[in-house]
């Protein structure tokens, strides 16, 4: 993806969000933002698809359940010792292990997925770095060139961007 475009800095999520809406209305498909917190209005304005991480994490949890039962039943059968007159494979206690492993593996998979997707996303839809974006400012970037860029600059200004500059 090209990183040529216009970067605007906002001091407030609300106008930033309005700018984004306007930009997308003006036919800018690739609008990106960087912000210190996930401000709902801005997120709504960007209207990105929901993260694909759900299904992966969920399957991780299910694998956990499987592992839990497999571990308990497998080891019990591998070393069949009677304790307290209870059957070798006594399911009720094994449910606990299955549950714990579901949570554990689910959480680990969730973490891994987050790292992968987040990192990839950061690279794919890069926003020109600015220390303020993690602090008190919001950066909106639109990939555009030539006339499109000028239009974007104008749009930004009228939505009260603190500063607007060309990048790339």
């Amino acid at each position: 993806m090209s990183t040529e475009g216009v970067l605007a800095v906002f001091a407030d999520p609300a106008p930033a969000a309005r700018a984004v809406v306007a930009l997308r209305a003006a036919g800018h498909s690739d609008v990106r933002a960087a912000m210190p917190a996930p401000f709902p209005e801005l997120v709504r304005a960007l209207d990105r698809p929901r993260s694909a991480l759900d299904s992966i994490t969920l399957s991780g949890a299910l694998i956990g359940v499987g592992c839990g039962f497999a571990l308990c039943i497998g080891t019990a059968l591998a070393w069949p010792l009677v304790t307290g007159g209870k059957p070798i494979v006594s399911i009720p206690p094994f449910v606990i292990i299955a549950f714990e492993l579901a949570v554990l593996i689910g959480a680990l998979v969730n973490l891994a997925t987050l790292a992968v997707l987040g990192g990839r996303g950061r690279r794919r839809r890069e926003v020109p770095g600015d220390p303020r974006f993690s602090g008190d400012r919001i950066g909106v970037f639109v990939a555009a060139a030539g006339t499109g860029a000028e239009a974007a600059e104008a749009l930004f200004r009228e939505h009260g961007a603190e500063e607007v500059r060309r990048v790339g």
Partner: protein
Amino acid sequence: MSDASDSNLTRRTFLKVLAATGAAGCSRRQQRKLIPYLVPPEDIIPGEPLFYRTVCRECSSACGVTARTREGRAVKLEGNPEDPISGGALCARGQAALQGLYAPDRFRGPLRRGGDGQLAPLSWEDATSAVAAACARNPAGVRLVSRPEPGAAGAVQRAFLAGLGARPEQRLVLDPLDPTPLRAAAARLFGRPELPVFELADARSVVSFGADFLETWLSPVELTRGLAAGRGRVGEERTHLTWIGPRLSATGACADAWIPVDAGAELWLAAGLLAWLLDPAQGVSGLPPEAKRLRELVAIDVAEAERRSGTPVGAVARLGAELARRRPSAVLGPGVAAAGAQATELAAIVLLLNYVLGNIGTTVRYGLDALADPPASFTDIHALVAELAGGHVEVLLIHHADLVGTLPVALGAAAALEKVPLIVSFASRPDATAGRAHLILPDGHALESFAEVRARRGVLQLGQPVMLPLHDTRAASQVLLDVAAQIARAAPTDFYDDLQARVAADLGAGGDVRAAQQRGGHWAKVEPEPVALRAEALTAPLLPSGPATAPAGALALLTFPTALRGADHPWLREIPDVIATVSWTPWAELAPATAARLDIDEGDVVAVTTPAGRAELTAHLYPGLREGTVAVPLGGEAALALVPAAAEPIWVGARATVARTGRRDEVLPQVVVPYRETGELVPSVSSARPALSPPAEPPGMYPPPEHPVHRWAMSIDLDRCVGCQACVVACYAENNVAVVGAEAAARGRNMAWLQVERTLRETPGRPPAMDFLLMLCQHCTSAPCEPVCPVYATYHNSEGLNAQVYNRCVGTRYCSNNCPYKVRVFNWQDPEFPSPLNLQLNPDVTVRSKGVMEKCTFCVQRIRYAENKARDERRGVRDGEIVPACAQTCPAQAIVFGDLHDPTSRVSALAKDGRAFRVLDELNTRPAITYLARVREDEP
């Protein structure tokens, strides 16, 4: 259990002994490398036990013993099954003899006390010649004090004195707790200064006047077996035991009725009973011809008797009626706990009761006491002490007799010994007297020596060494022979030959000495001799005249022997007293009411003072003790300091005052288990209600686990169990159970796998009654301890054992928390077996390390041994072939082990018995141990 020794064993053992005595203690060298036997000894097969028969010398009963040895060292003592006295069982003290053998403080060789009072080693030769010189100087100044030695050793001693030209009176036989009053009374009534032999198995009613015959009195193992023979059944045929005394002792706890009396007042009750029986109004049948004369001699009104003895009204009539009805009976006594100032009178009346009831010759047998070496009377002991104090004695030879440590302090033996220029002690361990000896010539331990003991007529017990001597010791008899030889400038005779010759003579023509020694003795059936009441016995009145009134305010002192105390062996000191549950330390018992009156609390340190002396003890409140009495166990200085040294020892009845010192013993209250009502735990039956509801197979969520071949199980008959704790010691010995010491015991860290628990039933209007319950791992089918272990360190094996895997255990202790019987013990520290006690360890059982849980295994090593043996012989395991240590040693044979899967086994039969119950059955743990409820006729 088979006898592995072969026919010329004693010769070899004897040679070993000689070799060892010659080359000083070669057996002490520790082998550092594992080297196989280059020339293996003939019968020592590594890993195989080897059994030797010998005789126990811990008390004067002289039980036959089978010693199990492994790789040339004794590891366990059991009764000799052929011996008529032990009957294959062995009491707690007998088994603990092993710890005397391996005692770390044993004398390693002859010692002489230097001017600085320190003991320094010297050679046997010097030692012998020193003794010889001293004895030769003035034979008249020689005295010999010995424990009863009815046999070779005694003969040698007498011969020694004779050789010196000394009078026989210069030898004194010391046995402080011997029932001398009974001998005296028998001499007076029947003209025989003998002890009777009681055949309790034939008696249907037994009455004991303070005789703790299940603990220490006469021959406890034999008497326990006799009583138990009539127990374990409901109804008329069951032997009924009545205990008479101020304190509910362990024997009293086994009694069906307890008639409490004032301390030392048994005499009046006995007299009242005799009067009642002789009273024609009662129409007692089968009275002897002398009945009329006797009636005049015991002219005492029954009510008067009850008043003077402090017994509840009607007690005499009830007891009399029972004795008249349930025949034959046996009246025992007086025990130490009844040996007051009038012990001899009491003994006489006890014998007369037996005479009147026709027990003499049936259950009370005379003519069996061999009188081989009867103990001296207290008059003689007084005389000796006087002689010693007077400085008339130049040489005092002491043979296993502790003048200072076993006689009342007031006797002044300690001071008297100061006057003796040369005290020679043959003690093998330090004791109070040896501490004052100038020469110590350690005798070999009974398990290292030959012995010949005439227990009674027809019962000849033979002892032999079961292993090489540990130290440079020498048989005391041999030393005496050497000394005699030196004095006579003759060649020393050999004690061994001497002994063999005596045995040969005993056996008569055609007797095989070696065979007898291998069997552990020679036993012949000897009929009792009839006795007649001497006319002159019926002249003097039988009762002392004048009322014996105690000074008000003071308490009566009661000293009593206990099964475990007396011998200084770690096992005996660690295992708590079955009544007080105290271990390691003596204590002072008070009735709660008395204690309240004196404002004394459990654990207060109190000062007990009698005219004889003063002792500080920790108070223990015991509802089973008579009001106005203070009871102190014998063993240790405390009790001896309090006992007055009158013409006869006043073990009971001395006036004592008890006062708080203000200090508290924080340890004792921790040890003492409070007496609590736990009727629901330990049910009992009666002829009114002969059967309990049978233990129902509880419903379970899961099918119970399969036991393909065996289901090992145990049954414990609480009607037979007498709480003697022999099983507990057996368990310690067999399973290498560690001794933890006083401090740890107080912290509740006793390691016993098997404990005799006691509970007290207090019914208003009745004297309290005691229940014993043997508590050990119940090997539950649904064991709560198993599923909670995270690492499978404990599980249920295919033979029904609750297995404990020591090396898998990580020590979470959850199993102990979840065990409703609390029979799992944790190793709070690494066990300590101070050398050479470690030589006693059973090689078939691991020694557990710190941080590991352990518990009863049903002696799995014995189970495996029997199973392998059966497999080798291509057969199944026979019922009764597997005998755990506890069951093996039980004198009452209360414990039965076997296979619950085999419907013909004894244990399965007992499991279906009407008295069968399982502890905490409602928890559905399905225990493998079935208890048989005790029979209590007083039950509603």
